[in-house]
């Protein structure tokens, strides 16, 4: 293990050094802290409004229960296993339990920190509507212990390497027990205490017995590590430009089937860019993240001007990112060898961007309309303004891309 431990600690150290550098870079930039500050104030106002305006009959305890069950059950073990480890660390498998222990302690620490932040955010809601301070602190200590247990179950599940229905059953088991234990932590009725102690112990014994002779789940952990890294990098790329990050491929079969049905196969770059966008690019995530952010603003801030400001801003944010589909995505050599001009590639990009802009504009305007922040006529005007802004930026980007040597 002496060979492994420094390597793992070195990886954690390097990752945190990089992360600190990125956070410093973001914090030292002018715009991002300002936007984040506005967001924080916005959510503070929204939270206050929620606490005072929602009726007493609203099932707060069920919402808190749902949120905590999700947070506790969806915990991830970060294994810190890289692709090359499948070659170089494989012969050292007998020393890996120590690696797993260190990685577990790290993951547990991070998971407990995350849970503490969530609990801190939920505290006002709990105090106002659910229970007393003393009950809350008791619940916190039980939930933190429960978090460590769910993480341990996750590690055991990795060792079981189950797929298909067996995996679904395993997941259901964890979610069910966690939901029950969260409920018990929030409402510690004595009648359930025996069951609350028995269930996790029985599940742990069964997991331990089924996994004690299993091999390390190298492939699962390598894949998990790459997904976790990409997730953080993708989050950081919202604020700073990060190059050389290879995202995991998401199949999204149903969405591809829709695209396949309704788009042309005759334009090679249209064919390629749609698939890249949906399966590989973080722009797809940007699309729905921007929509969700804008919707949250509209829902939480009950002022018409918020809708008028947020909707065009959101479309602008999305369209301005879209050239990355051509310029920052790494395509193999083939795009240079196809007998297809760069002009057609840009045309394909513009077509896709126009479709997404039209769709996002529509989705953005629906929320103010549903929340009655704007009338039907105002919604129509807002939609037209949003589309106009989006299409003007597309035209400007199209001209810029046509003269760029980054295309094709």
């Amino acid at each position, binding site marked *: 293990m002496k060979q492994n431990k420094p390597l793992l600690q070195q990886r954690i150290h390097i990752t945190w050094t990089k992360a600190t550098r990125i956070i410093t870079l973001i914090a030292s930039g002018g715009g991002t802290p300002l936007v984040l500050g506005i967001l924080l104030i916005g959510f503070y106002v929204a939270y206050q409004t929620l606490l005072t305006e929602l009726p007493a009959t609203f099932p707060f305890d069920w919402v808190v229960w749902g949120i905590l069950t999700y947070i506790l059950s969806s915990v991830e073990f970060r294994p810190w296993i890289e692709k090359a480890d499948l070659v170089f660390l494989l012969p050292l498998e007998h020393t890996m339990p120590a690696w797993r222990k260190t990685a577990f302690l790290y993951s547990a620490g991070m998971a407990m920190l995350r849970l503490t932040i969530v609990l801190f955010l939920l505290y006002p809601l709990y105090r106002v509507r659910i229970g007393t301070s003393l009950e809350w602190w008791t619940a916190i200590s039980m939930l933190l212990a429960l978090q460590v247990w769910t993480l341990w179950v996750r590690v055991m599940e990795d060792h079981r390497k189950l797929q298909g229905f067996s995996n679904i059953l395993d997941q259901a088991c964890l979610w069910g027990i966690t939901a029950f234990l969260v409920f018990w932590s929030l409402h510690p009725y004595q009648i359930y205490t025996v069951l609350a102690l028995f269930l996790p112990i029985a599940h742990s014994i069964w997991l331990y017995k089924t996994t004690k002779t299993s091999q390390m789940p190298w492939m699962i952990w390598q894949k998990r590590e790459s997904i976790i890294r990409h997730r953080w990098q993708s989050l950081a790329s919202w604020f700073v430009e990060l190059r050389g990050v290879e995202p995991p*491929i998401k*199949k999204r079969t149903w969405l591809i089937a829709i695209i396949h049905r309704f788009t042309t*196969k*005759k*334009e*090679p770059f249209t*064919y*390629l860019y749609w*698939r*890249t966008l949906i*399966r*590989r690019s973080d722009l797809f995530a940007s699309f729905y993240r921007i929509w969700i952010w804008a919707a949250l603003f509209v829902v939480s801030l009950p002022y018409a001007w918020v809708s008028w400001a947020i909707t065009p801003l959101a479309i602008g944010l999305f369209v301005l990112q879209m050239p990355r589909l051509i310029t920052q995505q790494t*395509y*193999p*050599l*083939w795009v*240079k*060898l*196809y*007998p*297809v*001009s760069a002009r057609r590639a840009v045309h394909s990009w513009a077509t896709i961007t126009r479709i997404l802009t039209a769709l996002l504009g529509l989705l953005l305007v629906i929320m103010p309309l549903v929340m009655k922040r704007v009338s039907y006529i105002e919604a129509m005007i807002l939609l037209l303004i949003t589309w106009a802004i989006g299409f003007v930026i597309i035209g400007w980007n199209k001209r810029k891309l046509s003269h760029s040597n980054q295309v094709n």
Partner: protein
Amino acid sequence: MLSIQNITGGYSRTSPVIHNLTFQVNPGETVGLIGLNGAGKSTTMKHILGLLNAHSGSITIDGSTLSDQPEDFRSKIGYIPEMPLFYPELTLWEHLELTASAYGLSDEIFHKRAEQLLQQFQMERARNWFPDTFSKGMQQKIMILCTFLTECKYLIVDEPFVGLDPIAIDELAMLLQQRKEKGTGILISTHILDMAEKLCDRYVCIHQGNIALAGTIQEMRSQAKRPHATLHELFISVVKGDHR
């Protein structure tokens, strides 16, 4: 005709990798580009494909250059790279569809050729798989399938047999032969000299970026003044500098 005239080039202006190369590939002919690792074979191919700009000289296909008519030039060339280059976000079938779309194949021709190629290379079961789950040989087959789907007038084939299973090697050799008979000009680089002898009509033997020997086996024997030498022996003599 694919014509390479006095090409000098490489990755940097100050240190060219290939020097003053001149040779042709005629329709219905297979030319073997042979040489040691680092001799300049792949660099020559990259110049033909327009991925590198030559310092001097010209490359034409049927009289036109890449800068004159880029789309026409590219539509006449098919390329099988030494290392598989694929889109990780596309399945095997989508690679084929994309290639068909780029080369303007009709649906009917595409389906007919694609199905036939998938069957020939035992890849039917993998049609909806993503290539990052493939073995290296299977990834190389994607390159082969995409290239043979297009039926281009000229094929540039870089070390095509590396990583392939014996059935795929036979199938590829047969396809190359068939395409040659149909009038395709093929420039093939390979280290497998036995295979080169079977497939090629002429050879261009490159050593340290220069053409050391060129022509049919007979012509190369007389250039090397070794009337009974095999291709293997000629190659060794070039590498060791015995023929000079």
